[in-house]
């Protein structure tokens, strides 16, 4: 089961209802949160992916179980691009050859649909309460989708006494290597 902030039951509904319901449901979410849309309409997969990209949300992927499609969409952000301030950075193509932990701070659903092999998942929102899972002696390479959330995560780690922390830039959007899925 993939973690989502909200589930929408659109099973049994025909086009265009899954889209209309999704549009309404996503207004209840905050930016960055994940919506699960359950649908049986076979066209919903292509429709939701196209809809998400046209209105600025992030389509993560779909899991099929029997006749039901579980679609995952992360609510897009209208925030302007903020400057990344964490000074220790490392480029994406270097991290495979380095020792240490790759920490993926995207939402669990984003991680599930594709992450770097061996990466550990702790979503940014949970990081402060899960610091004990991390080792201060180890190099930690923090990665997200575009480098924005990982920048914030790296700052949180530094504030909590982690010294061997690097923000990985640019982020998973540019990752061309192998992807591990958990769906």
């Amino acid at each position, binding site marked *: 089961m993939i973690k989502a902030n909200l589930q929408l039951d659109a099973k049994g*509904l*025909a*086009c*265009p209802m899954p*889209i*209309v319901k999704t*549009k309404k449901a996503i207004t209840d979410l905050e930016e960055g949160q994940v919506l699960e849309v359950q649908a049986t309409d076979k066209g919903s997969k292509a429709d939701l992916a196209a*809809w998400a990209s046209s209105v600025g949300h992030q389509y993560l992927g779909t899991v099929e179980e029997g006749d039901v499609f579980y679609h995952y969409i992360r609510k897009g952000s209208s925030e302007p691009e903020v400057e990344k301030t964490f000074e220790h950075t490392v480029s994406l193509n270097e991290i495979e050859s380095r020792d240490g932990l790759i920490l993926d701070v995207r939402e669990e659903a984003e991680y599930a649909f594709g992450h770097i092999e061996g990466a550990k998942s702790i979503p940014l929102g949970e990081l402060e309460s899960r610091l004990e899972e991390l080792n201060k002696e180890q190099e930690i390479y923090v990665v997200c989708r575009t480098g924005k959330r990982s920048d914030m995560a790296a700052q949180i780690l530094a504030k909590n006494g982690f010294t061997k922390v690097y923000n990985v830039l640019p982020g998973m959007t540019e990752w061309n290597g192998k992807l591990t899925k958990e769906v």
Partner: protein
Amino acid sequence: MSNKVAIIAANGGLFDAYKVFNIATAAAASEKEVQIFFTFEGLNLIHKQAMHALEMPAGKEHLTEGFEKANVPTIPQLVEMAQELGVKFIACQMTMDVMGLTKEDFVDGIEVGGAVTFLEYAKDASPTLTF
């Protein structure tokens, strides 16, 4: 990229209604501004009584079952949803005059206008669709 979709509904059968309202609601749900210009038989689609009894094309009556099985919303439901999503309905004044209809014959919340009203809206819309 234009954020406006302009639709002309000029036919009054059940299939025509689905084409018009499916595209309209999908566009509105994708955060587009949508206007539909209802003219000639297209006025059936928002007529208080006629919209409940739109006809299938001759010879296609057997598809009634298919519509039920696919759980397709009814036309009045789609009309309501389209309006809820902000789709604007414009009924053609000239056709209404010819058919002896008034604004009260149609669902609430429509506007009445002429061809120029629609053309002004549609001049920078993309796409403009005719059904």
